[in-house]
């Protein structure tokens, strides 16, 4: 447990030391302004008329009544969009406002701005849209058939957004030679991000015509490019500011309300516009985690060495591509788990349906495939008679190994160390005791999973960051964050890195959050690369600034002491510089006064190295990130208790053993690990997302159940801190790894208790009770 009270404006924090986050202070007092908290003077409210069909042709939109209402400022449709009206990263297929066809329930059809929220609601209701319903497809398998209705005619592969096959060694043939094989078929559900701050922002036109906006976005710089094309306005005519986000987890990776905001601002007669989704609208319009249908066949030899894997993954990306291709890539790249399997065939496809849009969500395809491979590994180990942990250890990748997708691991690999730590851990050693100590009408079990997670964007898309740092005229340090902080604390970590290098405390530092007008272009807050990449860039900038400060100070001391001095004799201290031999000091402010602006500002550009391997298969995946270079590793263990009368399941203990490089701030690291694991528990047990014919049935928190404080156990986090050469101070990304293995660990634990596997969707109490019944274990004492 943490120790008590020290003031936040403390001594400079050092890399590797737990330090409170600088942003916690303003958040805990309620002062911090999120995008939702801006109410520009005299602003209008903007809102969206949404489609009432999952697939339909719009035959008419009658806006006359809405337009005539007192207090309505503008009613806009796709006709008012000047540019391509298409959003998207690789596949630009999503209209800002539907032009002709709607492809999912709740798709945006018209945009209204009004004086008040009440008038806005009435005006939205007064818009009459007539539709001609079209045949719709909701099942990804059906979407692949020849007979299926096509969502985006004109694409070469019908409803298939992307499909490919990776094969290594002798491929599936090798399965025939295996001594033991195991098969599992697993279907995993959708998941909603359910961040607490729903999609929101404000926008206005600046005097020079620039469209300025404050939005809850993970991607301020990329948003400009997307908006530019869709609206036919040069990217430099947008200014996007991203305050701290009230959670995102991938759900704000790209445009949410920004297109509407820009359009509304263009038609607001110079007034600002504000938009803020209600929770139900968030469920309707926001992206989700991709559901997946997976088939696994895995084989090993007599010694328990994995030999062959045949697997297929089918993902549903819903009506528009969003990040569907990239999620499929990452899923396929990780499909074989962190094991050495020489012969593999991994087939994958991601398809369009008339379901909600799936896109980035913490884990990005990996929690899905981990649920496939880790259950297959458990089954195979049991069939072949091996200890579940030793079996994994035997087959674990090491540095220099080749993964099941042919990726040569040149960087740090800490999986074996993680497995060994877990093997020695009480929770694993005492697993039988735990199983045998269940009270009446309870059953207990332990579940295990091993996983890995790639860092960054892969070989094609440059993973870059441009850091900027300023010694302000008054002597304090301004840290410019070019990457959004969606809650993970990266902004504070940048301050920690700068504070470490320049030996300054938070009280002498200030953070400037992303603003395309003054922070420098950097890639998104995503892909376990936020601190990894920007951390490298800000380290570079801090080194430069330090050198300049010392050089100036040297001159000053030389004048004062009238002799030639050596820069090595100077040290930076909080707020000042000391010449050690003489003991003389000058305040930073004085030095700042001797520097002109161009010297006081240091910038540094950093692009991550990539994996240059040329792989024979999976060519189409290359653009989407295959292969990666750096991976983080984890082994996760859960102790479960099931009630045989009700099917109710409890996660009693959870162990995260993580190798994500060196740890810069243990407290912030633990936050990521615990938070990700908790979302994994939600994914596994609680968040039973339900659709009927493309319509979301779970669109509030009384039907879409998030875990509460009662549902998440105290977790233990064990760190294996290997130093990664690519990462700043040896770190690797830690934002996603902890969600990856939880569903699989829980599923393995449940299977251990019941003796059979629940293979479809969320592991709810109902399903567990049914499985207990079928296994003849219901109400067993």
């Amino acid at each position, binding site marked *: 447990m943490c*120790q008590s009270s020290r003031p936040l404006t403390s001594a400079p924090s050092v890399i590797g030391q737990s330090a409170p986050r600088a942003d*916690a*202070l303003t*958040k805990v007092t309620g*002062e911090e302004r999120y995008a939702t908290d801006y109410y520009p003077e005299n602003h209008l409210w903007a809102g969206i008329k949404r489609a009432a069909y999952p697939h339909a042709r719009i035959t008419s939109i009658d806006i006359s009544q809405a337009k005539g209402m007192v207090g309505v400022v503008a009613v806009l449709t796709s006709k008012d969009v000047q540019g391509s009206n298409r959003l998207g990263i690789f596949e630009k297929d999503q209209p800002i406002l539907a032009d002709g066809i709607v492809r999912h329930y709740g798709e945006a059809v018209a945009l209204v701005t009004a004086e008040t929220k009440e008038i806005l609601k009435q005006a939205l209701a007064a818009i009459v849209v007539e539709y001609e319903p079209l045949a719709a497809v909701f099942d990804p398998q059906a979407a692949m058939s020849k007979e299926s209705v096509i969502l985006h005619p004109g694409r070469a592969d019908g409803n298939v957004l992307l499909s490919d096959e990776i094969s290594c060694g002798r491929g599936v043939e090798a399965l025939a030679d295996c001594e033991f094989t195991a098969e599992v078929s697993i279907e995993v559900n959708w998941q909603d991000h359910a961040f*607490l701050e729903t999609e929101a922002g404000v926008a206005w036109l600046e005097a020079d015509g620039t469209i300025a906006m404050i939005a809850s976005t993970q991607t301020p710089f990329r948003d400009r490019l997307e908006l530019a094309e869709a609206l036919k306005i040069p990217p430099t005519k947008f200014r996007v500011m991203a305050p701290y986000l009230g*959670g995102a987890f991938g759900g704000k990776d790209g445009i949410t309300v920004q297109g509407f905001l820009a359009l509304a601002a263009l038609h607001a007669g110079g007034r600002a516009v504000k938009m803020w989704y209600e929770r139900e609208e968030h469920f309707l319009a926001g992206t989700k985690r991709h559901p997946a249908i997976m088939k696994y066949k895995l084989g090993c030899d007599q010694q328990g060495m994995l030999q062959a894997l045949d697997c297929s993954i089918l993902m549903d990306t819903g009506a528009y591509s969003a990040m569907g291709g990239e999620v499929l890539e990452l899923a396929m790249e990780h499909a074989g788990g962190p094991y050495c399997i020489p012969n593999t065939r991994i087939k994958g496809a991601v398809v369009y349906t008339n379901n909600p849009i799936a896109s980035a969500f913490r884990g990005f395809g990996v929690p899905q495939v981990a649920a496939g491979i880790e259950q297959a590994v458990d089954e195979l180990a049991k069939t072949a008679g091996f200890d579940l942990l030793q079996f994994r250890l035997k087959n674990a990748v090491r540095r220099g190994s080749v993964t099941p997708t042919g990726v040569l691991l040149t960087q740090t690999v800490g999986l074996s160390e993680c497995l060994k730590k877990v093997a020695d851990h009480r929770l694993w050693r005492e697993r039988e005791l735990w199983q045998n100590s269940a009270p009446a009408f309870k059953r207990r079990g332990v579940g295990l999973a091993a996983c890995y997670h790639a860092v960054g964007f892969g070989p094609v898309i440059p993973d870059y960051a441009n850091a900027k740092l300023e010694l302000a005229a008054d002597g304090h340090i301004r840290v410019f964050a070019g990457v959004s902080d969606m*809650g993970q604390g990266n902004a504070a970590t940048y301050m920690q890195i700068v504070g470490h290098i320049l030996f300054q405390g938070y009280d002498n530092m200030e953070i400037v959050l992303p603003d395309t007008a003054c922070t420098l272009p950097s890639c998104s807050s995503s892909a376990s690369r936020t601190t990894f990449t920007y951390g490298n860039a800000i380290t570079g900038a801090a080194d430069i600034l330090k050198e300049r400060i010392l050089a100036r100070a040297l001159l000053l001391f030389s004048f004062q002491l009238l002799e030639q001095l050596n820069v090595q004799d100077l040290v930076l201290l909080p707020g000042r510089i000391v010449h050690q031999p003489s003991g003389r000091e000058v305040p930073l402010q004085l030095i700042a006064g001797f520097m002109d602006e161009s010297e006081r500002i240091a910038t540094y550009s950093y692009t991550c190295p990539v994996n240059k391997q040329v792989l024979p298969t999976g060519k189409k995946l290359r653009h989407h990130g295959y292969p990666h270079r750096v991976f983080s590793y984890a082994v996760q263990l859960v102790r479960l208790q099931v009630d045989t009368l009700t099917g109710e399941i409890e996660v009693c203990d959870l162990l995260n053993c993580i190798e994500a490089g060196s740890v810069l701030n243990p407290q912030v690291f633990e936050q990521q690990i615990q938070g990700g694991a908790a979302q994994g528990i939600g994914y596994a047990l609680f968040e039973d997302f339900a659709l009927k014919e493309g319509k979301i049935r779970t669109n509030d*928190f009384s039907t879409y159940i998030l875990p509460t404080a*009662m549902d998440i156990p105290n977790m233990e986090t064990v760190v294996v801190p290997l130093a990664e050469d690519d990462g700043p101070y040896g770190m690797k990304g830690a934002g996603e790894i902890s969600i990856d293995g939880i569903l699989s660990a829980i599923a393995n634990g449940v299977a251990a208790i019941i003796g059979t596997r629940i293979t479809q969707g969320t592991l709810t109490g109902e399903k567990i009770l049914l499985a207990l019944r079928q296994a003849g274990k219901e109400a067993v004492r």
Partner: protein
Amino acid sequence: MRVKFMLNGKQTIVDAPADRRVVDLLREDFGLIGVKECCGAGECGACTILVNGTSRLSCLMLAAQLEGVEVTTIEGVAPEGSFAIVQQAFIDCGAVQCGFCTPGMVLAVLDLLQRNPQPSSEEIREGLSGNLCRCTGYQKIVEAVQVAAALLKGRRA
């Protein structure tokens, strides 16, 4: 209608439709943006305020219900005393990530500690079960409450 109530220690009179939601009134008319809205349906606790010292959900309250009561938002809690200790414990323990649940959570903690100054960890978890947090997994929040409770006990002793 005219509603007269105490807001963060100040006698306040507003003219508001009787059915105006309190969360809107506080945020839009008084600029008290520390009152967060997340679900608008009484299911998350982000909009928690103290009404006569006990925690209430401002998204479920209407302006008319404010007549004669004492409302405290995160902005108005006395900076000394238990508030400061709870806040500091949240900071020190790393109980704040995105922070969107934090103001509501802190108020819920104050209410909890007032009713039960030495809660067990189960009691803390139960007492905070109306406040959702999507970022932390709750563990560091529970720790923060334990630390705050211990400090407050030391202070009373």
